[in-house]
C-alpha cells in the first residue's frame, strides 16, 4: 500500500528532491546527473569505498561503515555491506531527514548498493518521504552470485519503495556495433540512466502548462520493478517533433517502440521552447499511441524550458501487459555502443545529444543529393562537390 508523503498535506511548497547515490554504481550515476542537470538538486553519495567517494562530486559524501570495511568497500558481499550501513545509520539519517522525495540510485548485485538502498528506502518511508528507487541489475555475464544478490535486494526494496524504476544492463547494452570498446558501453548505460532520472526529476518538480500530479506519477511508476520502459530524444528544425520521437523510440529499452505494446502505463513528457505547437504535441502523441496497445494508459505532460530551442520527448512507462521474459533479450556480451557524451566539462542535459549541424551552404551545393542520406567522411559532407569544398575554381 502506498502511504501519502508528508508534503502532499502542504501543497504550497514544491517538493524537496534529494538524489542519493549508493555504492560504486550509484555514486557514479549520481555524479553524472549532477554534472548534467540544469536545475538544483541536493545530491548525496553513500559508499563504503573511500576511494570512489573521494572522487565523487556529490554535495555531501558519507562513508559507510568505516570500522567494518576500513573504507575498502564491501568486496561484493551483501552482508558486509548491510553491516557497514547499519554502523553508519546516523549519517544515513542526515541524508534522509527533510527530504520529500528520495531518489535512490544504486546498482544491484554488489555488496553496498543493494542492501543499503533497501535500508534507505525503509528509513525514508518511515520519515514520510517518498522513496523512488532507480536501480540497475547486473549484466548476465557477471555471474550467478551477483544475479542472486540483485534478486534478493530487489525483493527487499519492493517492500519499502513504492516506485521502482528498474533498468536491466543486459538490455541497455543491446545496441552495439562491433569493435567498440567496453568502456563506452558502460558510459552509454550510465548516460541512459542519468537521462531517465533527470526526466523523472523534471516531471516530479512540476510546472509548465500541463504538469502531471505527483499521485499520478506514483501510480504510473508503482511496481515497475520488473522492467522499465524509457526513451528520450530531442530535435530541432521544422520536423523536430518527428526527430525527437524517432530518437526516443530508438532507445534500447523500447526496441524501436515495439516494447511499448507491453506497457500498461506510459508517460510522455514533452519539453521545449514556448513555441511548441499543438500540432506537434498531437503528432507526437499520435506517434506514441500507434506503438502502444489499446489497453495502455497514456499520460501527457508538457513543460517549457526557455534556455533551449530544442524539443525533447521522453517516454517513461512500466510494463504490465505481457511478460518481460518473453521480450527479446540477446544473450550476448555487450558489445559496445557509440559514446554519447562523456566527461565533458560543460555538458548540456543528457537528453540533448550531439547533433550534427548542417553547414550553412546554399542548397544548390548538393544538387541531386540534397534529399539523400549524406555521405560523411571525417566530418566532411562528400555530397558537396569536391571543387567547392577545396575552393579549386576561382
Amino acid at each position, binding site marked *: 500500500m502506498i502511504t501519502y508523503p508528508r508534503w502532499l498535506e502542504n501543497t504550497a511548497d514544491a517538493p524537496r528532491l534529494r538524489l542519493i547515490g549508493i555504492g560504486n554504481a550509484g555514486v557514479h550515476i549520481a555524479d553524472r546527473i549532477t554534472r548534467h542537470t540544469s536545475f538544483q538538486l541536493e545530491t548525496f553519495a553513500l559508499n563504503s569505498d573511500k576511494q570512489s567517494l573521494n572522487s565523487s562530486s556529490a554535495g555531501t559524501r558519507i562513508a559507510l561503515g568505516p570500522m567494518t570495511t576500513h573504507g575498502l568497500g564491501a568486496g561484493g558481499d551483501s552482508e558486509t555491506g548491510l553491516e557497514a550501513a547499519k554502523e553508519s545509520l546516523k549519517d544515513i539519517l542526515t541524508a534522509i531527514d527533510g527530504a520529500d522525495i528520495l531518489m535512490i540510485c544504486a546498482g544491484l548485485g554488489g555488496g553496498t548498493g543493494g542492501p543499503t538502498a533497501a535500508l534507505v528506502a525503509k528509513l525514508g518511508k518511515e520519515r514520510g518521504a517518498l522513496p523512488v528507487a532507480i536501480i540497475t541489475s547486473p549484466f548476465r555475464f557477471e555471474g550467478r552470485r551477483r544475479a542472486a544478490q540483485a534478486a534478493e535486494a530487489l525483493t527487499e526494496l519492493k517492500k519499502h519503495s513504492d516506485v521502482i524504476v528498474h533498468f536491466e544492463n543486459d538490455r541497455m547494452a543491446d545496441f552495439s556495433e562491433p569493435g567498440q570498446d567496453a568502456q563506452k558501453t558502460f558510459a552509454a548505460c550510465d548516460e541512459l540512466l542519468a537521462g531517465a532520472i533527470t526526466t523523472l526529476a523534471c516531471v516530479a518538480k512540476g510546472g509548465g502548462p500541463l504538469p502531471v500530479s505527483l499521485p499520478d506519477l506514483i501510480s504510473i511508476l508503482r511496481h515497475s520493478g520488473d522492467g522499465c520502459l524509457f526513451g528520450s530524444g530531442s530535435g530541432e528544425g521544422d520536423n523536430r517533433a518527428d526527430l525527437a520521437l524517432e530518437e526516443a523510440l530508438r532507445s534500447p529499452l523500447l526496441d524501436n517502440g515495439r516494447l511499448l505494446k507491453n506497457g500498461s502505463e506510459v508517460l510522455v513528457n514533452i519539453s521545449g521552447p514556448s513555441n511548441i505547437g499543438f500540432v506537434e504535441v498531437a503528432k507526437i502523441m499520435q506517434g506514441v499511441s500507434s506503438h502502444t496497445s489499446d489497453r495502455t494508459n497514456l499520460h501527457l505532460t508538457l513543460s517549457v524550458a526557455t534556455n533551449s530551442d530544442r524539443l525533447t520527448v521522453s517516454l517513461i512507462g512500466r510494463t504490465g501487459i505481457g511478460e518481460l521474459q518473453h521480450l527479446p533479450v540477446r544473450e550476448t556480451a555487450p558489445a559496445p555502443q557509440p559514446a554519447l557524451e562523456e566527461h565533458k566539462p560543460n555538458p548540456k542535459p543528457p537528453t540533448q545529444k550531439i547533433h550534427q549541424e548542417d553547414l550553412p551552404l546554399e542548397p544548390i551545393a548538393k544538387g*541531386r543529393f540534397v534529399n539523400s542520406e549524406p555521405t560523411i567522411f571525417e566530418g566532411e559532407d562528400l555530397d558537396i*562537390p*569536391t571543387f567547392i569544398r577545396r575552393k579549386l575554381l576561382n
Partner: protein
Amino acid sequence: MARDKLHVGLEIGTTKVCAVVAESRPNGELRLLGVGESPSRGVRKGEIVDFTNASKCVHDALADAEDRSDREIDKVWLGITGSHIKGFNHRNSAILPAEAEITDAEIEEVECKEQDLGIPKENHMLHSIIQRYYVDGQAGVIDPRGMLGSRLEADFHIIHGIANRIQNAIRCVKEFEIEVADVVVNSVASAQVVLNDHQKRAGALVVDIGGGTTDFLIYQDGAIRHSGVIAIGGDHITNDLCIGLRIPIARAEKLKIEEGSTEIDTIKANDRITLKNDTGFSGKEVDRRTLNLIIHARLHELLTILRKHVQEVVPEHLLGAGILLTGGCSQTKGIRELAESVFQGTPVNLAHAQSVSGPASAFENPQLSTCIGLTRYAQIVHSQLQQTSLFDSFFKQLGSKLKIV
C-alpha cells in the same frame, strides 16, 4: 550434372539495372547467354529510394535479359550495395574435448553465429567468409578436418547490412514471382571474375567504382581480408559538373562520358568544348580545364579516402597483384594514372570479367563486372553443393558460408 545449369545475376544499380544470364557447362566453363539492361530510376547511392520506379526497371531489365538469352528466368542472384554494408574481421574459437579429432561438427561449432557478433539488432549478416583456421594456435591451417587438437579457432570476414534495406531490394524482385537464390555483396561478386586464383593469393585490391557507390574488397593469401562500400560514384561526378559548369544533369552525364578526363597539366588554356543546343538548353561553351579539374578533384578525393580505408588493414606493399579498377567509372580517361599517383608505387590496372566466354562486348565491359560476378558466384556455390550433396537441404545457410577461394 549432365544438364547445363542456368545462373542469373541481377544488380539494381544507381545508373542501370542489369541482369546477366549465364550457363555453367559441365567442364566448368561459364558462358554468357544474354545481358538485359534498363536505365535505373529510383535508386540513389546504390539504395532504393523509389520502390515503384525501381521495380519497373527491374522488370524491364529481366524482360530484356529473357529476350536476349531466350531463356526463362525463375531465380536470380541479387547483388547488393549501399553505405550501410559494413565488413569486419572476427575470430571465433571453440574448445574441443581433449585431443579430439576435428570433424564437420567441430567446424560447425566454430562458425559465426549472428547473435555472437555484436552487430546491431536491425542488421543482418550477409556473408561470413572463412579466412583461415588455427588448431591449438598453429596458424595457417586451410582444412582442419581430420586433425587432432584441443582448441580450434577460425578467422572470418563478416559482411552485414541493415535488414530492411536488403529486404527492400529482395521485394523488388519478388514482385514478379521470381525467386532470389541469395543476396551477394557487390564487391564479393566482382572479385570472383576480376581476380584469378594467383591474384587472390598474391594479394589484390578490387575497386568497383559504379554509379552511386564505390565497392572495394581486398584479397590476401587467397582469402577475403577486408571489404567496404564508399557511397561515392559516377553520379557524384555528374552532379559536380552540373553545379560547377551550370549545365543540366543529362548534359553533364553525356559530357562526362564523352569528354571527361582527369588530365589537368597537359590541357592548354582556352581549350573549349562546345555543347550543342537542345530543347530547354541553349548550348554552351565549357572550358576543358575546368571540366577536368572538377573530375580530378572528385576522383582524387575518392581514391584518397579509399587509400585510408585500405591502409587501416593492409599496407599497400603487401598487395602483390596490385589494384584492379572496374565498374563504369573506371572508364574515365586518366583514372589509372591518377590511382597510381595516389597509391604510390602500387601497380594499378583496369580490369573486366575474366575466364568467362560469350560475346566479348559483354564481359569486356567493366560496367558488367558485378553482374557477371554474381553468376560466377552462383556457379561456385553450385559446384560446392554438388560435392556436398548431402547438405542440399542446408542450401540457404550454406550459400553465405561457402569458402570462396
